[in-house]
């Protein structure tokens, strides 16, 4: 069920402004790829093009191609809504739906897409919460509001919500940046578990985290202020952290800048 992502010559624009230029990369199925780099270099922007969330922003558009196995995500016949069902996303700040209970939050994706049968929903809710390592903590209060959980629990709730629609790929945009170290550890463990079923791409500012969770690391940078961001280097995480090809990658990783 996990799928492979092929990005080729991707240019990303906000209106007339070219934000990211010439990204080419491959993400293998059932692997974790980390995007690292300084703020504003386009990591999140690239991530959001992988499920066509970029175009939600007025003026957002792309040139180039993103292939999911053999399907072109940006083919004119492709429905962005269908793409997002296949490629799930977890955001930087936990964002459970405030009007919904824990159960409804997890079931939201299915229910809003027309699944009504209670037995099906209940099963998916339990499976997804188990998958997100949250089941034991919330199983007795599924009808309580999702916004009442702690930050770390909310983020795992959002992950449960994302995997409940059974995506092929899971995108995570700095999922731990608003969490404490314990919650971060819980999410990282979860990423390790999820890897066996999903293709995961994670944006992170925490290089230790990239080193801990990812198989492959991509380093993004700006050529200069005002220039578009670009992919400097991508490779096996071990190699990127021990023996990067590019000087800029080494400088960033060793803390000489950024």
């Amino acid at each position, binding site marked *: 069920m996990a799928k492979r992502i092929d990005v080729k010559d991707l240019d990303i624009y906000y209106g007339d402004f070219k934000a990211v230029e010439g990204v080419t990369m491959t993400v293998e199925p059932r692997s974790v790829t980390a995007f690292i780099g300084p703020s504003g270099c386009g990591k999140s922007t690239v991530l959001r093009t992988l*499920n066509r*969330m970029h175009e*939600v922003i*007025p003026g957002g558009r792309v040139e180039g191609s993103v292939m999911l196995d053999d399907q072109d995500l940006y083919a004119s016949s492709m429905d962005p*809504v*269908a*793409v*997002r*069902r*296949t490629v*799930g*996303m977890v*955001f930087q*700040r936990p*964002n459970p*739906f*405030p*009007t*919904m*209970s824990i159960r409804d939050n997890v079931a*939201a*994706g299915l229910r*809003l*897409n027309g699944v009504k049968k209670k037995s099906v929903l209940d099963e998916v809710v339990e499976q997804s919460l188990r998958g997100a390592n949250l089941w034991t903590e919330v199983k007795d209060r599924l009808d*309580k*509001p*999702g*916004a*009442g959980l702690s930050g770390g629990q909310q983020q795992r709730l*959002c992950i449960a*919500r*994302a995997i409940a*629609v059974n995506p092929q790929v899971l995108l995570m945009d700095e999922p731990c940046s608003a969490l404490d170290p314990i919650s971060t550890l819980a999410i990282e463990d979860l990423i390790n578990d999820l890897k066996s079923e999903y293709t995961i791409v994670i944006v992170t500012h925490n290089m230790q985290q990239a080193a801990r969770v990812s198989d492959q690391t991509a380093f993004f940078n700006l050529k200069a202020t005002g220039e578009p961001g670009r992919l400097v280097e991508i490779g096996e995480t071990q190699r990127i952290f021990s023996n990067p090809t590019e000087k800029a990658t080494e400088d960033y990783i060793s803390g000489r800048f950024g």
Partner: protein
Amino acid sequence: MSSAQVDHAAAPPAAGVPTPSAFGEKSGGRAVKDVTARVVMWLAFGIAVVPLVWILGSTLVKGGHMLVDSVWWTNSQSGITSRRVGGGAVHAIQGTLIQAAVTAAMSVPVGVLTAVYLVEYGRGRLARTVSFMVDILTGIPSIVAGLFIYALWVTTLGFQRVAFAVTLALAMLMIPTIVRSTEEMLKLVPNELREASYALGVPKWKTIMKIVVPTAFSGIVTGVLLGLARVMGETAPLIILGPYTKVIATDLFDGLMATLPTMINQDRTEALQPALDRVWGASLTLILLVFMLNLLGRFVGRFSKVKG
């Protein structure tokens, strides 16, 4: 405590020089400012409350006894002259409620959908034009709205003055307030919730219906009820389009329909006590209706409150 602090505290202040370093004492200037600000705030609060209490008090005193009589809630003014005691306000209460309901039924869908368009879809020239038009509509005096509908309904289309024409004028006044209040509430819904919904593969229209509007629901309802409360007390369009009648009338398209504001307006110039009592009674009834509407708004707001 270190010896340095002890020394400092023990040092006598130089004559005539304030000791700013002493803890626990307010400087004189700041205390004065504090008291002044307090007095001004309480005064402002008092000034704001006085007319409110005054109005409520005198309406209660002068009109309260009318509402206690059950006749007030069951009879109309049919056959009652200003010289005679008796009769009720049910014709006017009914008229006000019917007109408010019809006005709301027309204004709420138009207003809420316009707000949804402006917040969720509106880009470019059309949205700017719509927004500008709403601004202009907000500023229209109610008597102008009444005259406009009169010109349209009576002069141009040649119809009679009926309650439906009144509701058209009231809707003109209510729609912009609903658009503005709903717009504000929708803008308060964090964009992250919309994105979270899109990322689950939920189409935009469903995101709006199931996520955005429910999150803003209590605020939208409050805005609608406040708009409705305002419209229920509106008088100018009613004088132009819906003159007073003493009998119960429920037909929107035939004949006149009494309302509380026109009932008040009808008898207010009378010198006779029975008529004056009715003016106060109708005023109190109108205040009560609006008050109950506000209570309802709070109840609905609490009932559907965002959980968390």
